[in-house]
């Protein structure tokens, strides 16, 4: 970026109205200005003061003055029998007025391109940002910044990313944000002394893609280079290397602190612990699940009933009763960590969950009651207690609901067994946030199981942070938010998510949520997001994004992958941006070493024989 001011590119159009929000610029013959360019216009006020308008180009138009009919164009431009004056204009949305005077730009004033760093900082409110974080590059290859204090809960929190799947690159952008935070100097500086204890939980919902982010991207070499074939010597600002450089990252690469979790395989035999992951070796991936003891103590039974209809029936009531009863009855099973034995507690044991959990309980041998090592063990026990025609039917467990409700409860629990039963077993590891980024794979799970995992993990993170202050922060990246917190209906997961959206800011639990259409997600969640990001939109849904300008709504319907629009509280206009091709692998293919490396390794192995 040069230090000298650019020459003028045109004048504020006087043939149309210039307002405090928008104006047009008639371009000089030689000026080239495109969408998203930043412009500046200064005017001297009648009272001797000076006011400067900064704006962003939102539309460009051209016209031949003197052409009254379409066919005149042919006469003017091709046959050259009629004169005409070609004029080009751009429409500018005002970003900022310095000083903050609510005045329109003066028609006829000279307009220049924003060129110097101070001008750019003023135009994009960078001078007002407490803790600027680069979140992408603009059309010209210069960094676009966001105030981290609107991401970390200080002034605002939560990020909402919308866009159609496939081309909107929502997850990629979420990971890019995490990379900027966890793996760059700038990001670490913003996280401060709490940095090492700051954790992100990323749910992987598509393929095994995110299970490779701890590897360098083998395609970065070719994609990082110049794509437009710019002249040698002048850096090509569209190349990934240059884009990363603009963001202050010299050597983009993998995520360095990652834990990978995948669900215990549904096909596992009892006692066996393995995952279904094929693209990573079993030693790289931890099989996660919940030992029965954790399942009971964390009250996860409620996340087994997350269907829309569950909330409207008495099933929720009996579930609550059973949840407490299980906690009362559960004793650690001797010599088998994670397993419990269910036996009647002494009279006077509290029915309040927190009190029960506070009791110190010694392990008991299996013979003292009903040992539970798997979900099926639990199911068998509950079947005995809740089947109305069984001799062991126990009204203590039913909470006095109708027999039909007991049956409905059991029926639903039985239905969940093949979907999520395998996640509850001894031997599995609970998900622990110890590395910077923890990826939890749920892509192969049934919908119900996905909801169970998301609900269980989110509620635990939220519980853990209660009363412990904002920092260190917890970021949660969750795609398909519409599935967990839909606009309509109630469910325990939605409650957790709405709670995070509302109170997570002060507790330092920050949601980076993604969805195809923000209109499908509960408004409490989208409304609370300080940073709104939009990728390619479905043309039919673009109208729902009120924060976009009309032009951007239309443009967003044809965005290419890698182009997003960001709306942030400080800047009164949405800014289009791009983010660079990642240095970490975002799919199986990118995680593999390049062909020549593999070949060399194979040759070496062969030669070694």
């Amino acid at each position, binding site marked *: 970026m040069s230090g000298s001011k650019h020459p003028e590119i045109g004048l504020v159009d006087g043939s149309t109205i210039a307002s405090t929000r928008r104006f047009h610029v008639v371009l000089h013959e030689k000026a080239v200005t495109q969408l998203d360019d930043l412009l500046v216009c200064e005017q001297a006020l009648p009272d001797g003061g000076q006011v400067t308008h900064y704006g962003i180009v939102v539309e460009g138009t051209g016209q031949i003055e*003197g052409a*009254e009919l379409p*066919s005149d164009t042919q006469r*003017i*431009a091709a*046959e*050259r*029998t*009629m*004169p005409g004056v070609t004029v080009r204009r751009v429409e500018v949305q005002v970003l900022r007025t310095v000083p903050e005077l609510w005045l329109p730009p003066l028609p006829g004033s000279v307009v220049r391109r924003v060129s110097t760093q101070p001008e750019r900082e003023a135009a994009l409110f960078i001078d007002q940002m407490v803790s600027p974080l680069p979140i992408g590059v603009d059309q010209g290859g210069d960094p676009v910044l966001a105030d981290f204090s609107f991401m970390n809960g200080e002034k605002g929190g939560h990020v909402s990313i919308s866009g159609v799947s496939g081309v909107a690159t929502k997850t990629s952008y979420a990971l890019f944000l995490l990379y900027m935070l966890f793996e760059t100097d700038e990001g670490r500086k913003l996280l401060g002394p709490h940095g090492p204890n700051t954790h992100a939980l990323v749910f992987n919902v598509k393929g095994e893609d995110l299970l490779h982010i701890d590897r360098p991207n083998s395609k970065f070499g070719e994609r990082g280079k110049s794509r437009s074939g710019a002249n040698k010597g002048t850096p090509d600002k569209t190349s990934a290397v240059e884009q990363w450089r603009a963001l202050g990252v010299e050597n983009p690469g993998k995520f360095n602190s990652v834990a990978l979790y995948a669900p215990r395989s549904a096909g596992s035999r009892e006692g066996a612990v393995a995952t279904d992951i094929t693209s990573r070796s079993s030693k790289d991936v931890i099989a996660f699940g919940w030992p029965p003891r954790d399942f009971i103590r964390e009250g996860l039974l409620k996340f087994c009933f997350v269907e829309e209809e569950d909330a409207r029936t008495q099933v929720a009531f009996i579930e609550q009763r059973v949840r407490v009863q299980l906690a009362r009855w559960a004793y650690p099973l001797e010599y088998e960590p994670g397993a419990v034995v269910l036996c009647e507690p002494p009279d006077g044991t509290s029915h309040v969950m927190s009190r029960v959990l506070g009791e110190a309980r010694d392990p008991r041998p299996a013979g003292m009651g009903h040992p539970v090592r798997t979900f099926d063990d639990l199911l068998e026990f509950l079947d005995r207690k809740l089947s109305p025609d069984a001799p062991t039917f126990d009204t203590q467990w039913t909470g006095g609901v109708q027999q039909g409700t007991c049956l409905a409860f059991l029926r639903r629990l039985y239905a969940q067994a093949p979907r999520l039963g395998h996640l509850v077993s001894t031997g599995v590891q609970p998900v622990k946030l110890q590395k910077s980024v923890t990826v939890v794979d749920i892509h192969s799970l049934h919908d119900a199981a996905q909801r169970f995992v998301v609900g269980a993990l989110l509620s635990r993170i939220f519980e853990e942070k209660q009363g412990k202050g904002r920092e260190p922060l917890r970021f949660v990246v969750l795609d398909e938010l519409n599935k967990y917190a839909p606009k309509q209906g109630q469910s325990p997961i939605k409650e957790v998510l709405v709670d995070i959206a509302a109170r997570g800011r002060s507790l330092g639990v920050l949601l980076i949520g993604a969805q195809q259409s923000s209109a499908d997600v509960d408004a409490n969640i989208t409304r609370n997001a300080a940073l709104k990001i939009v990728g390619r939109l479905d043309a039919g849904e673009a109208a729902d994004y009120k924060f976009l300008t009309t032009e951007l709504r239309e443009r967003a319907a044809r965005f290419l992958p890698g182009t997003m629009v960001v709306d942030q509280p400080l800047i009164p206009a949405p800014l289009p941006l791009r983010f660079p091709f990642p240095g970490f692998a975002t799919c199986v293919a990118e995680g593999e070493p390049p062909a020549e490396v593999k070949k060399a390794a194979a040759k070496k192995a062969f030669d070694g024989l």
Partner: protein
Amino acid sequence: MTIFFEDWNVSYGSPYLIEPDEVSEEPAELIEDKQRFRFHPGKQEGEELPPLAFVDGVRRGEASLYRHDPLSGEIVHGVAGAHARGAVVRNGNGPLLFKDTRVSRLCIWGAGQKPTLSPTEHGFQWESDSIIETSPKDLLARLHQRMRSSEAELAEAMGKAGYLTVIDGPLPYGRVIDVPILGYIKTHHKAILKAEYHRKVPSLAPGERTSLFARKHCFSAYLRLAPRGPFSGPWAGIVRIEIPVGAGLDLAIREANRAAFFLPKFAGVAHKDPRAPQNLQPIGALENHLRHLLGDPRLAARAVRESVAHDSSHSPAQRGLFR
């Protein structure tokens, strides 16, 4: 007898205004082709045409003024108005561009009087001019005359700068012009040629011209711009050109051939121009452009009003009158 349809819009009248029994004072003398009446196809005359220039002007009365002498009761008329002139030029096969456009504002008074109007703060200012006559019609005629004179000045300058220059209307009378600029006349008021030649003019083919004839201070010829429509009158699409005698006959022939070659290419388009095809496309566009440059007529009238009001409030005599 056949009935024809006049192609010009009725509000513009007819380009053919020659009365059937009108006798020309003295039929023009043929001076080319050994005094025989011939048709010549247009020719480029050389490899490439020089740069072209079409010159035209517009005028507009913007406010009527009176000067009243309270002692004698005498009233003198004045008119405030504006005229603009400019050119459309083309170099080689390049685009047509507006060039050297200029707007002048005048305040013309009758009876030899010449008071001035103060300029307004919005940039309106008037040059004063005076005529002997007193009728508003004569005042407007003076405005027209000033416009024509400004056009002629530009046309001569363009001609001298090497442009093949076409000026809309007859060549200015009473000026000595020695560059080959072309006068371009759309309307035929008089039969200039002998009746036997005059009768033949409509049979010109598009892009053909007649032999040159002498006409006052210039050489002249008829030429046809465009084919006649099925119901158009015989004289539809026929214009007359003028070339100053100072150019000399040889040069005049060359210019006439060139005119018949290139003018038809610029013929006006019927669905756009009420005076097509005679009103050339560059001229039509130039007129629109110049009229636009004159500015909003309401704004101009307001400026005159402001100026008059300003001058009155500053004139001791007027102040005395209002007291």
